[in-house]
């Protein structure tokens, strides 16, 4: 009998590695991974720290274009300052372009608001470590979940008061204690109180101070993977801390509706790069480095915690004939 032979495309040369005909199709694994990760969805946990009145909640709402912060979840509009630092986490699922993200905003009311603010970062530090502990426990379980629920703090936005002078003692203390435990992204809040020159001078001074105190903010120098990363991150590090303005109100400017703050002398446009660096922050945080924030948290901060924990546990660590591992502490 006669076979009907279907038409099939000409066979070209595949790239590198082999000289025999055809195309294998390895690049399709990207697409396979994409489908799986889209199905699984993403989650992101962001903590906001700064004393009250710096516009933290407004900024987070502006960043994610939704009412995701604590104040919008019906917690009442009495902005009462609590007696101690509280940790309040609120989760929302937001969707865009077919991608579902479970966003958790962790607010820290009471930070920096007391008369005596000594060690006010302790509850925050404790919370962050508790999330690492939770993850660790799940990881060593016998029957562990396929996808361990991730409540670890991926990013901590630290709000600096726009004094125009320098960092406050509390700012330095907080960042010193926590920059080795979590990714800290410092931002200058309510930056519409400074002119361009004042802003640049302030930023320069802040960067110098951070350097003097050995505070590594995200993206940390030591974690740059390769030259490409380093170049990209160097540019970002030179511009940080971003001077931002947040707003959830819209105004008409030149026939377009923009988010902004209306004053007697003009409208501060939040997304206008000439007015403030909100757009830079947003692009950096969400559009290019969101995944990296999670990876640095998982591969570095979490591993540091885990290694310390294992060492503390009476030195119970893998011992075998061909084991060449050592503690990396």
């Amino acid at each position, binding site marked *: 009998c006669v*076979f*009907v032979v279907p038409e*099939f*495309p000409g*066979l070209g040369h*595949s790239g*590198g*590695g*082999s000289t*025999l*005909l*055809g195309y*294998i*199709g*390895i*690049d*399709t*694994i990207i*697409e*396979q*991974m*994409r489908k799986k*990760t889209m*199905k699984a969805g*993403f989650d992101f946990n962001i903590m906001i720290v700064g004393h009250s009145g710096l516009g933290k909640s407004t900024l987070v709402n502006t*960043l994610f274009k939704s009412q995701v912060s604590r104040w919008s979840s019906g917690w009442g509009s009495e902005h009462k300052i609590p007696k101690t630092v509280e940790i309040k986490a609120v989760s929302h699922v*937001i969707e*865009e*372009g*077919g*991608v579902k*993200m479970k966003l958790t905003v962790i607010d820290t009311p009471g930070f920096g608001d007391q008369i005596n603010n000594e060690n006010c970062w302790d509850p925050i530090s404790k919370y962050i470590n508790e999330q690492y502990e939770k993850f*660790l*426990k799940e990881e*060593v*379980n*016998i*029957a*562990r979940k396929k996808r361990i629920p991730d409540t670890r703090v991926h990013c901590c936005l630290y709000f600096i008061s726009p004094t125009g002078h320098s960092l406050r003692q509390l700012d330095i203390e907080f960042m010193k204690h926590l920059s080795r435990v979590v990714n800290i992204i410092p931002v200058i809040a309510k930056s519409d109180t400074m002119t361009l020159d004042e802003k640049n001078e302030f930023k320069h001074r802040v960067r110098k101070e951070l350097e003097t105190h050995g505070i590594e903010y995200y993206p940390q120098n030591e974690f740059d993977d*390769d030259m490409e990363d380093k170049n990209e991150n160097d540019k970002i590090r030179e511009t940080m801390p971003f001077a931002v303005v947040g707003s959830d109100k819209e105004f008409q400017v030149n026939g377009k509706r923009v988010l902004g703050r209306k004053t007697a002398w003009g409208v501060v446009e939040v*997304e206008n790069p000439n007015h403030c660096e909100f757009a830079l922050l*947003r*692009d950096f945080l*969400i*559009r290019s480095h*969101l*995944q990296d924030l999670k*990876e640095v948290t998982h*591969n570095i901060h979490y591993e540091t915690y885990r290694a310390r924990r*294992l*060492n503390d*546990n009476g030195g*119970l*660590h*893998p011992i*075998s004939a061909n*084991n060449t*591992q*050592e503690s*990396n502490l």
Partner: protein
Amino acid sequence: MTTNIRYKSRIPIKSDETTEEKQYVGFATLPNQVHRKSVKKGFDFTLMVAGESGMGKSTLVNSLFLTDLYKDRKLLNAEERINQTVEIIKHTVDIEEKGVKLKLTIVDTPGFGDAVNNNECWKPITDYIDQQFEQYFRDESGLNRKNIQDNRVHCCLYFIPPFGHGLRPVDVEFMKALHEKVNVVPLIAKADCLTPNEIKKLKDRVREEIERFGIKVYQFPECDSDEDEEFKQLDKELKECCPLAVIGSNTVVEARGQRVRGRLYPWGIVEVENQSHCDFVKLRNMLIRSHMHDLKDVTCDVHYENYRAQCIQDMTSKLTHDNRMESPIPILPLSTPDVETDRLIKMKDEELARMQEMLNKMQQQIHDGKDQ
């Protein structure tokens, strides 16, 4: 081939300053962020091939990955093979295509099924698979987890001879020894010696026997409801074609005016990539283009987890007998201990309490004895 269209690599969209764009937050780029990292790191895949000599395993591997891994191989004759045991030989090759790097490891099992007495000839193979799991388990529980090498076997292609009438006892026993440790994909080898009818009969027979003997071969995951019709159709065809009947070739022949991989016979030319000649294309698509990631996932989430759970349970039960055993995993106080561990701990406590009591009694007796 229509499947190619589906898998065009998606380039990340450059952001545009249109008003529409401004409405978006921008985390729709997340999948691309994830992929950028993976592309940089590259992927790895470990494939095991098992079956008697002469089933065309090496040829098939070369055909699948367009490599020439077995160039300098020396074929043994029967006499040399008599005393040969099953070996495990690894070949590693780095392949790059369209910017994506793959580190491919082929685990070959020469000697399998070649001896006169093939009792338990799969043992070196199951031992190898377990060793890789154990190595990964130790690495994963260690302190420095930065660069863990994943040598776990992601898929095992098992070659069934086309000459028989279905599965032989060694086929059944082998697959049963492995089906809970690795993804087993059975193939009918050298399918060019069978007519289409014979292939169909053999496939039906093998499918029925796999079911009857309770062999858990690799199951393709169900299609999502939102997949397009074309994909669903392909998926259905794939499932109905199992086990796949394959042909491999290291030579290029001229057929219908084109240079193709094939085998030249006096009565015609067998084209490896011709879907009406054999299922090679289906195998390649399944293995590389649609299910490679899933094969790895199932290995990690099912086979490895089973091994790990079993390992931990064995160690926990050993602990009650031997207090001084060093455990390779950090024993953190588990907040949710399972019932079994609880029971064992309780038993141990009671035993300790009894021993302590006995000790006290003895001490008392000695003490009393002394006083008298």
